């Protein structure tokens, strides 16, 4: 993978030109899109989405799926918020409780989907519903007044960057390193492409996706805790509602196939950025509410179109260097 941007790379990440075009369009029409405050705002708001989309993407690449993240987010937020508001919990204990809650949901999902082998779609749709009910039962009223220690989680600045952004970067880096640098990274793809072949090759076809369910649960709960800290309040009924769809959208728009076995983290990060910029830009421009919805819907369709065009463009981009080599019979090295 080279670091210079060549046409091949652009073709592989068709969201890049789209994001650039959107940025230019929004800047021209509002004059305030490119402001550092606005950009940092987008980054901060998108951070929680990124934190969950990244492990979710690994899960989808390995051929599974977690829809329960919206409720796990709420549960994580409620757990941390409850400890912070009712028991004066500090940063560490709050985050720990939240992570435990997320791990518990992840373990249930992972057990049912990876060990027993039930359908991830139905199981996690079930836990999505059930966990929301539990979170609401546990904290029917909004939780507030969290105290300074917990506020630090979402409000601190590290090297000039808001802490949610820093945490998101960490998650992306760790996941990226696992995917690119470790054998497990290859196993994730292998399981997604062919679970059977991976099993016969000695890959831990239960443990690996189980662990990804755990990671997704933990990250979803952490994201909920972060947002609770940022907002200073949690409401169990609405926190993270519809978040599962946003996550899945970012993952799929980012070029990860729902069938598993393909996708890149760069794509997922671009998918998150795409959604964040779209939301921000439409509000900046002041598009009327219902038209915003129409525009968001169309944007998804456009993104699907790009994902479709990408491999075709890539093939086109590949033709030129190939033409020179035509005399040799060696096939072009393909790009996975």
């Amino acid at each position, binding site marked *: 993978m080279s670091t210079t941007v060549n046409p091949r790379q652009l073709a592989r990440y068709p969201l890049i030109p789209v994001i650039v075009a959107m940025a230019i369009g929004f800047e021209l029409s509002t004059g305030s899109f490119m402001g550092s405050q606005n950009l940092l705002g987008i980054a901060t708001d998108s951070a929680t989405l990124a934190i969950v989309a990244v492990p979710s993407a690994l899960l989808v690449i390995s051929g599974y799926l977690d829809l329960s993240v919206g409720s796990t987010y709420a549960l994580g937020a409620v757990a941390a918020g409850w400890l912070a508001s009712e028991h004066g919990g500090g940063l560490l204990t709050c985050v720990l409780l939240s992570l435990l809650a997320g791990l518990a949901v992840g373990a249930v999902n992972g057990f049912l989907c990876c060990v027993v082998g039930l359908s991830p779609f139905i199981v996690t749709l079930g836990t999505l519903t059930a966990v929301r009910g539990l979170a609401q039962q546990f904290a029917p009223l909004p939780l507030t007044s969290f105290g300074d220690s917990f506020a630090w989680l979402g409000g601190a600045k590290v090297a000039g960057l808001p802490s949610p952004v820093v945490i998101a970067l960490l998650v992306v880096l760790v996941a990226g390193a696992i995917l690119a*640098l*470790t*054998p497990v*990274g*290859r*196993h994730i*793809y*292998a399981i997604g*492409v*062919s679970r*059977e*072949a*991976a*099993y*016969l*090759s*000695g*890959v*831990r076809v239960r443990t690996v996706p189980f662990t990804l369910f755990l990671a997704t649960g933990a990250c979803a709960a952490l994201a909920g805790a972060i947002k609770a800290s940022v907002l200073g309040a949690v409401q169990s009924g609405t926190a993270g509602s519809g978040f599962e769809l946003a996550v899945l959208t970012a993952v799929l728009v980012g070029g990860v196939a729902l069938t598993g*076995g*393909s996708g890149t983290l760069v794509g997922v990060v671009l998918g998150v950025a795409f959604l964040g910029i779209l939301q921000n830009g439409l509000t900046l421009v002041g598009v009327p509410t219902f038209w915003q919805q129409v525009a968001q819907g169309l944007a998804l369709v456009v993104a699907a179109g790009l994902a479709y065009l990408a491999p075709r463009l890539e*093939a086109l981009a*590949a*033709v030129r260097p*190939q033409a020179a*080599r*035509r005399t040799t*019979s*060696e*096939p*072009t*090295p*393909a*790009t*996975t």
Partner: protein
Amino acid sequence: MALRVTGLRKSFGGVHALQGVDLTIEAGEVHALLGHNGAGKSTLIKALGGAFQPDDGTIEVGGRSHAGLTPRQSIEAGIAIIFQHLSLVDSLSVVDNIFLGQEQRRLGMVDRRRQREAAQRLLDRLGATSSLDSRVGDLPMGQKQLVEIAKALSRDPVVLVLDEPTAALSSHEIGALERTVRSLQEQGLAICYVTHLLGEVERLADRMTVLRDGRVHVATSLEGKTRRDIIEAIAEPPTDLPPAGPVHDADPPQLQVRGLAGPGIGPVDLEVRPGEIVGLYGLIGSGRTRTLEMVFGRRSRRGSITVGGREVRRATPRAALAAGLALVPGDRGRQGLFASLTALDNALLPAQGVLSRFGLRRRRAEAEAFERLATSLAVHPATPNAPARAFSGGNQQKLLLGRWINGILPTTVLLLDEPTQGVDVRARHEIYKVVRTIASERRTAVLFASTDPEEVVALADRALVMQDGRVIGELAGAALDEDALLHAVHQSDSDLQEQS
């Protein structure tokens, strides 16, 4: 002239699969389409079937010339194709598959009775024993292949194209198929036959067209041609196989199987000594695949498996791998290959963990390992980053072999299920060489299953004949030849018939 293809071209991205191919087949002729793996045979056939549009060239059939065909046009024109990768729908029944897309109708509804009658006639004609209502996915490979052929014949074709129809068949079914082909020929069909098994070419074909790298290399009548001539047309003549290494009877067996049993299998006892190559020969369904899978822990089992004197207790692939066993599965597409992953990932997936340091992959070491492996197995192309699906069948098989015999993993017992299925003459030879070499040099014990008696004779030091999940005979040394193998299975076949 029933079918004439002129100047056909097709490229995939940068790969030029067909570069101006001409092919003419007369009515009443069996025409062998030959060539090495990746020569472009299947691509040509897919263009005939409408799987994609050719870039250039014409296809003339039934007096009409087409620049390209859709599947419906192709079927209408009277072309019937048996594709290399079956075009059957697993979850549908045998009848439904035979008439898929060409249902017999009555008042807009499926005319089930007429379909069943017609289907039964076709199956009987082919000597197929499967029931009309069986799910195709539940059928053994050979029966599937016969359903596929029945489907082609149900369309009253003018041209019948068979892409490696016998790769998964046993001698039994091959015989039936050959008889069918001959009777169709007599009825005036033009038949295009793709195969890597040269015996079939000799027995059936009138003419041959040999492709090399997407071009016609030779197109000639087969009259007076010897096997040597055919081989030379396809590839450079193979060198001799390295001699089999010595097997010492005094050595303790590397693999020892005692009382192995499972559904429909066993009890099976067998042993393989270090450096020994043992072939499991039998008809389709005789239980070779299941035996290998049980040894490897893919299926639950009873009985004991001992590798190098240590018993492998847990029946899981991981436990088997840890003990030094490795399996190259027979169903390459479903159980072996990661089609969209790179060649390097495919060949080195289990080795990456061994090569890694502090949990991180060492790409340099991986690249070197791949290069060594590509050289020793003559993988072509030797590009580590090409996705496995872009490789021809033979080269895919080499990648799978390379997964276990790369010198990185401690494989001491190699289990191979149909190791050269769909592999061209030359690559087959190379695979034999590789297997011989690791057996004699690394003293690896090899246990392989094959349906091709030629292959068993060429590769095995010793052959075990399987039937109904049991080992019913053993042949070794001078007694091991094709006739003896065929005799062994058919002997017991007729025994059974007499009994019942």
